[in-house]
């Protein structure tokens, strides 16, 4: 049986807030009458920060008592006091609450360059009735992703080249029309999904002289049908992760695709960057999840003729689309695998005496192919960091219990607190199997000296994933800048990559004149048969530096060089964008680059999709 989800699903964004103002009639109403000045629904910064991560109402701050708290009501941590954060923050970075570096509070619209409009294009666009805008706010909001340098510039009120206008197609057909017009009038199109890029992919190339149009897919956010026999769903590509999950849940299904950015990132974005989800061990990465993709290119629409689960029809054309980073066209509709919502979920955690043992355990788990939905190993620095985010304990009993646990691990078991590390686990499935699975994993862990450390620690570990981006904004209020980057690496090099990249970051910071010792930390976030995905965080206090962003960029560059020299990949799931372009040639070889280039040349000879990512 196929269920058709009727049009007029509540507005895409962020459940409770977004739903207040808009209910139905998205398509009919706005598209015809309000195309010149789109309503608030199109304006994300009503609910989201214009110069930081996430929802405007959710942020970390140090209150008058100097205690850290997290505002808002959206997260489990919201409204809580985090008593240990201040000491950790000051101790780790040498920062002080006295030294503030606040952001420019409001966007100065006069700092945004006047738009370069292609009048013929605008006229024809009006005639086809697709809403658009050239308001400064709309354009500035879509001119950046979330790289540190992008956010840092926004906080200082600096706006570089931004799109000259924004269009909001409502469906596949709208996109076809827009792309045809863009080709006709030689306008540059940059597709925009959730705006969570961390590869400078959304930056407008400064050398672009044509009018740049940001194609915002947010209105293409419907589930068009669910096929329960084949367990697939056909979805418009502009849908945001959490909405997709929530809507499917209502029918008892899920995709299981949960990238850390799922609150804000879009399906089309996942496809075009080869995204990876936390629970890929059960559900697979995006390339495993898609069954069918429809993309509009300057040469026309590309799609397969059937939905066969596997084909031998030459190289898989999906793989030209997956990871194309908006250089070939706009993904408009995707058919995805879905699964029944799991009956039972359980978090867990294991403490290891050191990182080496932890990695050995993860390797063994991967070898036995019994990885839970998610298994992640944090190093000692992140373990400490996680501890600093513990909310105020409600009773003396809990704090006593915590003390007892600590005593048991460090004194009785002889773990060195400055070396131990923790793995967080998430099991999913039916209850019986989960418990069985859990036992199997804990047994393996025990062989590597691992001690089960409870569900709470596990859950807090995953929560950290969602709030860490908010924490960066807090750091930036106090002269601390931070960034994360990732790689994938064969098992035999995991430890080497972790050690060397962390050490390289520390050394580069020192060499580049950073006055305070940096935080340099990593975690293993995914396991595969032949390797793992490693995520690095680094942060430092930039007081005393005249050009902190430049220093940070040099350090990040050096760190990437180090990754490549140690056998790590250029990216596991963030993509290349413009940030990592310089390494493409050595990554995929001269011929590889030539192949990609020839596809680009055929599909988009006029470089309409001119964001200049990847190549």
């Amino acid at each position, binding site marked *: 049986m196929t269920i058709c989800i009727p049009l007029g699903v509540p507005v895409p964004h962020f459940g409770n807030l977004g739903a207040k103002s808009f209910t139905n009639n998205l398509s009919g109403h706005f598209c015809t009458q309000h195309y010149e000045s789109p309503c608030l629904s199109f304006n994300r910064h009503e609910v989201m920060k214009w110069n930081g991560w996430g929802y405007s109402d959710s942020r970390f701050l140090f209150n008058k008592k100097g205690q850290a708290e997290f505002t808002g009501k959206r997260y489990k941590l919201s409204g809580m006091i985090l008593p240990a954060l201040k000491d950790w923050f000051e101790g780790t970075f040498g920062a002080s609450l006295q030294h503030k570096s606040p952001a420019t509070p409001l966007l100065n619209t006069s700092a945004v360059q006047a738009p370069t409009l292609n009048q013929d294009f605008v006229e024809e666009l009006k005639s086809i009735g697709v809403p658009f805008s050239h308001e400064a706010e709309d354009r500035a909001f879509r001119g950046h992703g979330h790289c540190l340098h992008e956010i840092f510039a926004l906080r200082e009120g600096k706006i570089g080249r931004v799109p000259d206008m924004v269009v909001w197609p409502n469906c596949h057909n709208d996109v076809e029309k827009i792309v045809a017009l863009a080709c006709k009038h030689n306008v540059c199109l940059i597709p925009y999904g959730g705006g969570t890029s961390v590869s400078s992919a959304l930056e407008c190339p400064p050398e672009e002289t044509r009018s740049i149009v940001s194609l915002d897919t947010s209105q293409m956010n419907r589930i068009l049908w669910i096929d329960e026999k084949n367990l697939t769903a056909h979805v418009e590509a502009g849908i945001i992760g959490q909405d997709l999950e929530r809507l499917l849940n209502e029918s008892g299904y899920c995709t299981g695709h949960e990238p850390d950015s799922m609150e804000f990132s879009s399906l089309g974005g996942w496809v075009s960057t080869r995204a990876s989800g936390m629970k890929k061990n059960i559900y697979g990465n995006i390339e495993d999840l898609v069954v069918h993709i429809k993309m509009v290119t300057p040469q026309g629409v590309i799609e397969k003729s059937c939905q066969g689960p596997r084909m031998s029809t030459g190289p898989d054309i999906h793989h030209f689309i997956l990871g194309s980073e908006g250089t070939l066209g706009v993904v408009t509709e995707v058919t995805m695998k879905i699964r029944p919502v799991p009956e039972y979920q359980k978090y867990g955690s294991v403490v290891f005496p050191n990182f080496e043992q932890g990695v050995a355990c993860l390797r063994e788990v991967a070898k036995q192919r019994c990885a839970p939905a998610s298994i992640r190993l944090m190093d000692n620095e992140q373990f400490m960091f996680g501890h600093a985010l513990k909310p105020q304990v409600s009773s003396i009993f809990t704090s006593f219990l915590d003390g007892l646990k600590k005593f048991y691990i460090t004194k009785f078991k002889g773990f060195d607190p*400055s*070396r131990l590390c923790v793995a967080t686990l998430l099991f999913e499935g039916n209850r019986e199997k989960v418990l069985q699975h859990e036992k199997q994993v804990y047994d393996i862990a025990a062989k590597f000296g691992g001690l089960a450390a409870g569900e709470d620690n596990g859950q807090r570990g995953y929560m950290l994933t969602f709030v860490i981006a908010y924490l960066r904004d807090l750091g930036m209020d106090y002269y601390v800048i931070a960034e994360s980057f990732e790689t994938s690496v064969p098992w*035999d*090099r995991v430890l*080497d*990559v972790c*050690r*060397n990249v962390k*050490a*390289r970051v520390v050394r580069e910071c020192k060499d580049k004149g950073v006055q305070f010792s940096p935080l340099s930390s990593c975690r293993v976030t995914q396991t595969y048969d032949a390797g793992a995905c490693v995520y690095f965080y680094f942060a430092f206090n930039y007081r005393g530096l005249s050009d902190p962003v430049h220093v940070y960029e040099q350090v990040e560059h050096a760190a990437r060089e180090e990754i*490549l*020299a*140690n*056998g790590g990949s250029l990216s596991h799931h963030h993509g290349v964008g413009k940030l990592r372009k310089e390494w493409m040639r*050595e990554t995929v070889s001269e011929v590889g680059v030539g192949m990609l280039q020839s596809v680009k040349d055929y599909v988009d000879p006029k470089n309409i999709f001119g964001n200049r990512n990847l190549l």
Partner: protein
Amino acid sequence: MKASDRDLRGMKDDEFVDILEERRCSSDLGHAFRTFNPQPYKGGPPCSAADLNKALLDSHFLHRVVKEVAMETGSSQEKVMEEAGEILVEMSHNLHLPFIRLMGYTFSKVIKRLFTSIFVNMDGLNTLQQAVQENPVILMPNHRSYVDFLIISYILFTYDIPVPVIAAGVPLAEMKIVGEILRRSGAFFIRRSIGSDKLYWAVLSEYVRGIVRHGFAPVEFYVEGLRSRTLKSLTPKLGMMQMVLEPYFKGEVFDITLVPISISYDRVLEESLLARELLGVPKPKESTAGLLKASRVLQEDYGSMQVNFGQPLSVRKLCEGKINRSYYNLVPRDLPMKPSAEALACVSWLAHVVVGLQERGSLISPWSLMACLLIQEPTTVLAEQGLLWDDLTEKTLWLRKMVLDFGARLNWPGEAPNSAVMSSAISLHRSIVYLKAGRVYLTQEEVPLRRHRISPEEGVFRTAVPVLMLAAYRNQSLHALVRPAMLAMSICITRSTQRDELFRFFCFLQEVFANEFIFIPGNLSQDFEEACLCLNSCGAVYISEQEVRVSEQSSEVITFLQKLLQPFIDSYQLIFRCVCEEEQVQVFTEKQFLAAVRALALKLILSGELHTYETLSSDTQKNVLSALCRLEAVAKLRTSEINEFKVNKAAVRRITDALCGKIPPQMLQAPPDARL
């Protein structure tokens, strides 16, 4: 101490401390039982010798090689594995603190007797103490005497730094008791000729890499491979260096720290043994009995010893842009793999850099300066008429000023008057020269009473011993003088003032003498530049963009420097001549070659045609042979068991002519990779 005094001593600002001073006023037993509590590497857990061996035997790398060897030889894997185990037993160190203490105690006793003082630079030790906590450290001393062997361990023990494991030759292990003591003091033992023994290479390289990876103890090895018989630096050996560096190339460690260490002696214990060995008397085999017999050397005074710990070098920084570590990305970590050409070049370059730093770090003694001057006198004059003492002292002070101008480090005691310093140097070296009635004479061994006459050949031999000793002490200063001396030689031979012509000849000399003097590959123009600046700094030349012109007033600098290199030129020319002379002979063995050269040299010394005794040194002879091979004038034949050489006489003549300026030198080899 006043700044000017310091400058004269040439010790710069380093604070050298005599570590024997404290040993003389406190108990050696107390020292041996001191609390030894070094800061461990990165706070990591220590790794015992047994753990290390176990990790090696369990390694995938070794198992792979064992499998291959078993396939190739047809024996079972278990058997090969057993063999590997035996190799490991022979090789592995067994570092034990109690033995370090025992060693420390004995060592205190012995060195106090041998040396008046042992100077160590404290800031070098302090930086080393830091360095051992951060990255695996490789200690790379030069090797001039057997005393070198444990001195580093002794110093590190005294200053609470983890004691090193030391690469040593298997013959040492075979000494009774002593071998075991060395083993427990941290020595591990390597066979001299490994050849193509795959299993041995595998065990050795994995063993060394294991120690570096764990980083719990510094590794100490002699990059020169063996003790230098001539007190000159030797061409570095690359095998060990490569094993030590590989963990960095493969990314198994973040960085490796190299610490060049320069050990200099006022007087070397083995001086006369070395000279005899160079003249063809075989080296006594290392044995415990021999060691005990040698205890008579303990009766003598050897002056002071200086140990200069160089600035730690980061391999990572040095290799930046020189090596592409992703070379290893596409094969398993534990696959035995030939290093890339790039890596080999880098290893060689690093080894040369370290040797260069060892040289620059060594302290030149007053005696060595005197030896430079003494050896320039005709041997017969020195043996019979003697040299006027006042002339010698005056010229030594002149030379002192010059080497200081050249930026060398000197060990000139500042507290005593200059004349006292020099006469005490003479008396310390009475085995070579002696002072009588205001003149300095060459010391010659007394003729045994029973024999009344000695043959002229024996006479040459008797003179040669002290002369070669003198040459060895001269060699201690050569590193500071060789670049300007080569420029001086180029000026004298080419009689040109053109910079590029001089540079061409300078390069040619470096090429010919690459086995005599160690130069960093690819550093030619810097070396030339340095030579120009040196000569300019002492007023010997004027330099301009195109020209290097000798100044009229100070031709004595040029003459002195030219004479400094003359023995090498003479020896090389003679040996070239010898190779070309034999009419029919095209192919010879090394043994035949050495004998022929020796006979000719002896003949010409007796006839007064050859003025240097250094041609008699087997070291010089072998160096010429390697130079000829390198310059492709002689080819090594691999047909027979013993090495045979085939000579291309025309090529040798071309080199001969170029070396005396008859024809312009062609570049003999393609210029080395610009990146190096």
